[in-house]
């Protein structure tokens, strides 16, 4: 049995790798059909991902909010909820972080944690509402979170315009003391926008793993996700756990927004369209099989490909949308792991 588990784990590791390769091969075929040189295209893509210190820095920067968004989605998923509202939670988190970063002047050691906390609280509240409605009125969280996305989009813009406006469709810049950016990291990576946020993303990944797998609270959250009746029977508070799960998920998403506000940008735009990071988070979570470690890898792949796409366009003239196609195919192949699993099983069977 143990042996079987072990080999199952290896297969689980092999699948995404396999899927990524298949996705890239399919991408190459599309490039060929489109009249582009795949070798050149992929060289450019690779360089754009990790070809230089700067590329690595940018890839890590892009990964950071994706990890957090992925964790937000995965956390809800693991507890039986589907949070499509990461996008909106991210936006309110972004705004809150920027607001704290701009409105206060504090020592860095207090300012950054405070700004991130504000983002987590804001995102948490944004997740709390659909959680509450789900728990109390059995309203489907998918609709509420979709609606909450739009509400976040329009209210954050309005709030910036009303209270934080610096002209040019953006808020005031945050103070230096709240910034995650660092000249040291920048010079290390040749002026990339790498910032300290990645540390928070890793911490969040550990927190999620620990919370879900090592604590009694996580035990409850998952149990409620699997079977509400049995959880109630076992003395758990079903309603409170649903609400808590959505709030925690939202808090992670809020921190993702803080990464944009305190790290990459240092301000917030008055957006009139979604950033897309929240939706990417769904893909990252699923690609990473909802596990903390998997999400980090998936975010690396995702973030890397996305930052490298313009490079590929620049160097090899391949439209950057190709990357989106490749990502879609990789997700599809991972999702259809059934066939890969079957294939690997057969291979290993024949090998014996």
């Amino acid at each position, binding site marked *: 049995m143990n042996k079987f588990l072990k080999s199952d784990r290896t297969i689980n590791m092999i699948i995404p790798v396999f899927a990524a390769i298949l996705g890239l091969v399919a991408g190459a075929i599309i490039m060929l059909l489109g009249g582009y040189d795949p070798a050149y295209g992929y060289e450019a893509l690779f360089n754009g991902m990790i070809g230089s210190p700067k590329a690595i820095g940018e890839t890590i920067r892009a990964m950071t909010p994706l990890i957090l968004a992925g964790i937000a989605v995965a956390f809800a998923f693991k507890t039986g909820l589907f949070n499509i509202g990461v996008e909106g939670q991210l936006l309110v988190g972004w705004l809150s972080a920027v607001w704290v970063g701009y409105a206060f002047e504090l020592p860095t050691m207090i300012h950054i944690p405070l700004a991130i906390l504000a983002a987590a609280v804001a995102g948490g509240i944004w997740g709390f509402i659909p959680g509450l*409605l789900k728990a109390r009125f059995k*309203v*489907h969280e998918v*609709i509420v979170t979709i609606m909450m996305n739009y*509400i976040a989009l329009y209210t954050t813009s*309005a709030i910036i315009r009303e209270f934080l406006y610096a002209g040019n469709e953006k808020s005031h810049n945050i103070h230096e003391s709240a910034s995650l950016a660092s000249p040291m990291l920048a010079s290390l990576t040749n002026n990339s926008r790498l910032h300290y946020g990645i540390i928070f993303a890793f911490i969040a990944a550990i927190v999620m793993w620990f919370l879900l797998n090592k604590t009694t609270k996580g035990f409850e959250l998952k149990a409620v996700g699997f079977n509400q009746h049995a959880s109630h029977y076992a003395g758990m508070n079903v309603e409170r756990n649903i609400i808590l799960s959505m709030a925690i998920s939202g808090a992670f998403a809020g921190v993702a927004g803080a990464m944009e506000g305190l790290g990459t940008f240092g301000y917030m735009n008055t957006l009139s369209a979604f950033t897309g990071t929240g939706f990417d988070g769904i893909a990252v979570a699923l690609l990473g099989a909802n596990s903390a470690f998997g999400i980090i890898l998936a975010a690396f792949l995702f973030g890397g490909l996305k930052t490298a796409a313009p490079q590929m366009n620049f160097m090899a003239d391949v439209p950057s*949308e190709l990357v989106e196609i490749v990502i879609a195919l990789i997700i599809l192949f991972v*999702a259809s792991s059934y*066939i890969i699993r079957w294939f690997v099983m057969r291979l290993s069977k024949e090998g014996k």
Partner: protein
Amino acid sequence: MSFFDILVLIIPAALYTAAPLIFTALGGVFSERSGVVNIGLEGLMLFGAFTGIFTTLMLQDSFGAASPWIGIGVAAIVCAIFSLIHAVASITLKADQVVSGVALNFLAAGLSIFLIKKIFGKGQTDFIQFRIDKIDVPILSDIPFIGELLFSRVPATSYIAILLAFVIWYVIYKTPFGLRLRSVGEHPMAADTMGINVTRMRYIGVMLSGVFAGIGGAVYATSIATNFAGGTISGQGFLALAAMIFGKWHPVGAMGAALFFGLAQSLSITGAQIPVIQDIPTVILTIAPYVLTILALAGFVGRAEAPKALGTPYEKGKR
């Protein structure tokens, strides 16, 4: 400005903008009634918009005013085929249905722009010459009051969408096909023991969602956007999904919810020109439709019962 004037402003606009949502939500009903979650409605709509515009552009010189209608038809077919990706992955290969739907969205977004760039050498198309125009329904539009409210300045597609909701209600609740489709979404194993081919029914469900989401996208493109670009479809598919859930997976309910969205939307937009409402801050008006939806759900619509087997791949003999 009289109350009637306000209604005349709001209702035709609601009918106009709700049509694409209705079609798409109806597509969602088919898929989810068969037990397959379809979060890929957004992608299907997007691909439908792309196909509709592309076809219209290609045919308009020879077919003239018929070309957008042909475009809608082609979009239906192409998206039925496109939706097969979701079907194969989630039904045959037993992929997580949410994942494969998300993948479909990415694929549609990437592929459509990639193709546009490849075919036209630019990131968005020209405008189509012939649209699905707003019409005054003959005779009916002459009825006092009602005529102006409901039968003027609305494209034919809106009426088709509303009629279709009833047709689909009939199909799903009154015909053997509908009974089988629903049984597969509620209890596939039971259906299987009754000799119903679960896989086939689910394929049909997903492909019909492709057909109608494709139509929805094409209707949006040919009646409202009139060209295709990266942002032409941005979120409408998710709204349609929400409408379908709001409507409790019922065709007429989904239509009603889509109309509700349309109405709330047009009220909020038009509100800026209506005296009393004018003084409300813009942002309140802008978010009103979404807040109203949440309130409606929490207040009186209450719990939605999803098809029981929704989201679970069917494996013979598994319990």
